[in-house]
C-alpha cells in the first residue's frame, strides 16, 4: 500500500473537510430524486409561462386589445407571480434537501463513520451548508435567468435590476435552507422539511396581511408583516426581489395602494435590512453549530 497519512495543520484540515463535505452535498443533490423533481417543476413552470406570456401581446380584453406597453406592464406583474412560484420551488426543494442531508444521516447512522474521522463537527456542518448554498443559489440563478429570458423573448420585457433580483432570491434560498438545517438538527428530517415549508408560507401570508394593513393605514396589522419579515426574512427578501423585477411604472399606476397587492413591491430593501438578514443567517447557523456540536451521534 502506498497510502500516506500526514498530520495537516488545523486550518488546512478544516478547509479540506468543509470543501470535501460541500462537494459531497452537491453530489448528493445531483444524485437524489429531488433534483429531478426540481427540474421537472421548473421546466413545467418555464413552459407554461412561455405559453402564457406569448398570449399577452395583442390579447383581447374587455377594455380592448392590449398595447405592447400594457402587455409589458402586465408581464412585469406576471413575472413577479411566476418568479414567486420559481423561488418557492427552489426554496422548498433546497429545504427538503437540507433536512435529510443532516437529520437523515444522523438518523440512519451514516454520520457515525464520518464524524469519527479526524474532522471538527463544525466543519462537517459548514461543508453541508456551503454545498446547499451553492446548489440553491446556482439553481435559482439559472432558473430565474431562464424565466427572465422567456419574458424577454415573448413580450420584450427585461427587469430593471436582474442581478439584484437573482441575488436576493439566492439569499432567500440561503435563509430557508439555513433554517431547515437548524430544524433538522433538532427534529426529524421530515418534520423539519414540513416545518420549514410551513414557516415559509406563514411568513408570506403575514407579509401580505401586513401589506394590506399598511394600505389601510392600520398600524397593528401592518406590524404583523414587519415582525414576520424580521423573524424569518424570506418574505422581506422576496419583496426586495420583486421590486428589482417589476416595471417601475406599475407602482406609478397603482399609486399609494401598491402595498395591498401581493405581487407588487412598494420599495426596495434597505441596507439595514440586508445587514439584518446576514446577521440572521449567522445567528441561525451558530445555533445549528452549537446544537450539532453538543449532540450525541
Amino acid at each position, binding site marked *: 500500500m502506498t497510502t500516506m*497519512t500526514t498530520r495537516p495543520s488545523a486550518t488546512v484540515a478544516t478547509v479540506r473537510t468543509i470543501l470535501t463535505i460541500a462537494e459531497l452535498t452537491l453530489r*448528493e443533490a445531483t444524485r437524489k430524486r429531488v433534483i429531478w423533481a426540481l427540474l421537472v417543476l421548473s421546466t413545467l413552470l418555464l413552459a407554461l409561462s412561455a405559453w402564457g406570456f406569448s398570449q399577452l401581446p395583442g390579447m383581447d380584453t374587455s377594455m380592448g386589445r392590449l398595447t405592447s406597453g400594457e402587455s409589458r406592464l402586465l408581464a412585469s406583474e406576471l413575472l413577479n407571480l411566476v418568479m414567486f412560484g420559481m423561488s418557492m420551488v427552489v426554496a422548498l426543494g433546497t429545504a427538503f434537501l437540507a433536512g435529510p442531508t443532516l437529520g437523515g444521516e444522523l438518523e440512519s447512522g451514516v454520520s457515525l463513520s*464520518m*464524524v469519527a474521522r479526524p*474532522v471538527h463537527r463544525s466543519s462537517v456542518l459548514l461543508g453541508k451548508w456551503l454545498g446547499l448554498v451553492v446548489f440553491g443559489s446556482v439553481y435559482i440563478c439559472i432558473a430565474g435567468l431562464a424565466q427572465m429570458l422567456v419574458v424577454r423573448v415573448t413580450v420584450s420585457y427585461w427587469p430593471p435590476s436582474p442581478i439584484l433580483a437573482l441575488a436576493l432570491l439566492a439569499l432567500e434560498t440561503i435563509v430557508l435552507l439555513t433554517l431547515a438545517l437548524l430544524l433538522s438538527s433538532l427534529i426529524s428530517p421530515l418534520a423539519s422539511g414540513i416545518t420549514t415549508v410551513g414557516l415559509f408560507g406563514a411568513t408570506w401570508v403575514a407579509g401580505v396581511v401586513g401589506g394590506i394593513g399598511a394600505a389601510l393605514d392600520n398600524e397593528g396589522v401592518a406590524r404583523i408583516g414587519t415582525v414576520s419579515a424580521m423573524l424569518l426574512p424570506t418574505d422581506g427578501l422576496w419583496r426586495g426581489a420583486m421590486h428589482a423585477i417589476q416595471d417601475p411604472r406599475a407602482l406609478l399606476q397603482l399609486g399609494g395602494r401598491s402595498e395591498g397587492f401581493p405581487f407588487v413591491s412598494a420599495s426596495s430593501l434597505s441596507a439595514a435590512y440586508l445587514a439584518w438578514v446576514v446577521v440572521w443567517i449567522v445567528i441561525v447557523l451558530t445555533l445549528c453549530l452549537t446544537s450539532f456540536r453538543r449532540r450525541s451521534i
Partner: protein
Amino acid sequence: MDWDNSAGGVAAPAVPDVSDSPASLAVWCSGLTKRFGRREAVRAVSLDVRRGEVVGLLGANGAGKTTLIKMMLGLVRPDAGEVMLLGQPGTDPLSRLRVGYLPELFRYQPWLNADEVLKLHGRLAHTKQSADDRLKLLSMVGLHDRAVDRVGDFSKGMQQRLGLAVALVGEPALIVLDEPTSALDPLGRVEVRDLVLKLRERGVAVLLNSHLIGEVERVCDRVVILDHGRVVASGTLAELLGQRKVTLRLDNVTEPAHERLRTLGLVEREQDKYTVAMPDTSVDGRAGADNFDSADAEVSRLVTDLVQLGVHVYGVERSRISLEDRLLGILRAGADSDTSTDEAS
C-alpha cells in the same frame, strides 16, 4: 456456581505497566462517565489498549460498550473523564488521524459506489490513496468486484464488509470494531478473525466489541468486561481463563479428605459431585500446555491422597473455565448483587 466469580479472584485490575504512559498507548481512557437522562450508561470507566494489542470488550446488551466506544471517538460527549488516542488528547479531532472505526450501525451513503465511499473517507482522513489502494482495500474484504456498484444496492453483509474497508482507510494504527461480524455469514466471520490477526501482526491496535465470545477468545490479547456501565473484570485471557477446575465424584468424604480438597482450591459440592477451582499457579500466567501438565500432576496427587484417606473415587474430570463461563459468572453475580464485584481501573 459462584466460585469462579470470587471477589479478589482473577478479575485483576488492568494496572498498566510503568512504561505505559498515556502518550505511548493506542487508547487511554480515564474515568469516562456518561448519563442519558437519569440513567448512567457508563460509570467511571478507565481502560487502555496498548499499541499492537487486540482488546475485546464484552458485556450484556446495554452494558455501555457502544457508548464507551463512541465517547472514545468523539461521537458522544462524556460527562466526565478523559480520552487519549495514539498519544493525542481525544478533544483534538486530529487525534483520530490514524483511527479506523466500524460502527455497530454501519451505513454509508447509499447513492455513492463503494470506491467513492473509500475515496470520501480517504479525504476525510487526510490520507493520500490511489485507485489501486482502494481496490486493495476492497479486495481485503471481498468486494473487489463491486467497486463501482451503488452502496444502496448492497446487502447488509456487504455493507458491513464495506464498513471494514472504510475502517482500514489511511493505514490506521488503531481500529475500533463495534460488532464487526453481526451481519456476516460464518465464512465472513472467519475472514474478519483472520483480518484482525493480520492487523495485530502489523502492529495495529484493535478494540473489538463483540457478542461472539468465541471470536473474542480466539483473537484478543486482553478482555475488558463491562456490566451496568462499569468495568467488572479485565485482564489477559490467561488471567481470566487461567483458572482450571477439576470435578470429582466421591463417596465417604471425611473431614481430613475435605481438608485435602480445600488445599487445592475453592470447593463446591453438589451431592457426590465435588468441583474444585484451581488457582493459576504458573509463573508467567499463561494457560499453556505446560500448565495443564502441572495441573495433571496436582490432580493425580490429590486422587492418591484421597484414596489413602479412605475416600471412594468414582470419577475425575479436569477442564478449563471458558471465557463464556467467566462472563456468565460475572454477569450473573452482577445481577445478584450490584456491588460484589471488584472494579478494575
